[in-house]
């Protein structure tokens, strides 16, 4: 236990910044490289780092498997939900222009929500992969 002190402290310090970076990649995706997929992977990497340093059980207590499995479907549902909303508002499926009063704002809102859906699904899938493989043979 005492030999990995540096690792534990350092990763504890890093965790919030990893999440912050994930959110930066997510929301800066409009203007620079990035987007939901990359942000989702970075976010999941935070959970995986926590699991590697503090153990799988601790990670599963912090982020329960049922939550990550629900995230997989929930993110995709958000994506599809945006599409359905635009259909209900009279546009085609995933036509963001009808989401707000002005087409440009609608496009902005639409892509933001859709990318959020991607983030949720990708993060959920990555963590589920990790839990599944790490939990084998126990």
């Amino acid at each position, binding site marked *: 236990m005492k030999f990995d002190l540096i690792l534990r402290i350092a990763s504890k310090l890093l965790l919030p910044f990893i999440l912050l970076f994930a959110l930066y990649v997510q929301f800066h995706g409009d203007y620079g490289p990035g987007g939901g997929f990359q942000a989702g992977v970075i976010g999941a990497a935070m959970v995986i780092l926590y699991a590697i340093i503090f153990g799988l059980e601790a990670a599963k207590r912090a982020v329960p498997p049922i939550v990550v*499995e*629900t995230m*997989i*479907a*929930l993110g*995709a*549902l958000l994506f*599809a939900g945006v*599409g*359905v909303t635009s*259909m209900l508002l009279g*546009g*085609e*499926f*995933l*036509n*963001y*222009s009808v989401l707000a009063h002005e087409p440009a704002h609608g496009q902005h809102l639409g892509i933001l929500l859709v990318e959020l859906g991607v983030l949720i699904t990708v993060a959920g899938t990555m963590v589920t992969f990790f839990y599944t493989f790490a939990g084998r043979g126990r």
Partner: protein
Amino acid sequence: MMDQLPALQVVIPLLGALACALARHGGVAWFIATVVSWAMPVVAWLLLSQALSGGTISYSMGGWAPPWGIEYRVDALSGFVLLLVSIVGAVIMPYARRSVASEIEEKNRAWFYTMYLLCLCGLLGITITGDAFNAFVFLEVSSLSTYAMIAMGKDRRALLAAYQYLIMGTIGATFYVIGVGLLYSVTGTLNMVDLAQRIPEVESTRPVLAALAFIIVGVSLKLALFPLHVWLPNAYAYAPSTASAFLAATATKVAIYLMLRFLFTVFGVGITFDSLPITNIFLVLSLAAMFGASIVAIFQDNLKRMLAYSSVAQIGYITLGIALANHTGMTGGIVHLINHAMIKGGLFLLLGAVVFRIGSVKIDDLAGLGRKMPITMGAFVIAGLSMIGVPGTAGFISKWFLAVGAMEHGWWWIVFLLVASSILSVVYIGRVVEVVWFREPSEKVAEAKDVPLDMMVPALLLVAASVYFGVDTRLTADIAALAAEALLGGVR
């Protein structure tokens, strides 16, 4: 609402799949999947009747007009395949409840229905889309969910079968996307209609020919054209019964649809059949499938594997129709696409009923089963006769069209080969008939009896369809003739 139908055809099963995943309970997921899959034929029927009366339907995804955005297109052929896939998907669902409950453990059942609906979504998507790359995405959606469904089979070999299919399927999809990429690099478009208009200018350039080769090989892997069929027998044999029936009836058919689209709509007969030896290639491979796979089927002990090899042989008939490339032959191929879906779907459901009762499909375990499960085995014989192509059944209609199509070319020998390969199917179906009806019941089947009504009715419906479409061909042959005409006319 009517304007949104093309999107709904794909979006409803997608939403249903997500709802199943969130439900996490097998029973609830089954209910959602049933409601969703029953809505699909309604949508498909509305689309088909609209396309037949008012001409091709075009829908711009996300409001981006084609050829820039993704276009959904419904014409006679795609509407026809949509209807076929969604009807099979709907008919199987009532059957699925008991079959899935007996073959898949509770924690995986909701996921099974999720995968089922995702697969349905992918197959409908490939059919409805008018965009070559979007077709690749849906190809992957349906394939990935298929791998997961196969891996859920009870037998441990299911995992290996799923892995084998994963490798082969991925190679197929990669080849397809390489082909699409080459086309894009030359023409700068992904829209199928737009591609069809631009390809003639560059038709003899190397990238276009390479693209054609990649796409044909990639899609042939997916449709299990002999000798690219090796993934199919294990996948169908070890998948859960519900999945076997659904995949056998729909997955390869949709791949054939994609092949038709590329050969006739995108590249056009002028390139594919007039200047390249595609007729000969397809002719040889189809005949090899009809004989090779049928002979292998005769020697199978596992009846699901036997039906799987027979599927490879039957796909040979369909590709034979493509190879003939005249109106009658194409009609025969397309009619066989639907007839074989009904026949094979029905046969796999009946074998699933056998698994449900005695837990095995080894031919020796089935001795005397006809006396214990008379309706199941009686229906098996009828569907078997339809597959052989006995006059008065659906199988006869498709083979008749194929034979006439071959004669129009003056290829009499093909007619003889058609009859000869039908005799091979008499042998493998006859072998089952002999064992289940003419032998004393063994101990294994002593307790067996016919399955409950909710499993029986779906199977009988498909078997009844495989006889009915042999008598009344208005829905099958007439629409197939229309589709064949449109394909051979091309868009140009």
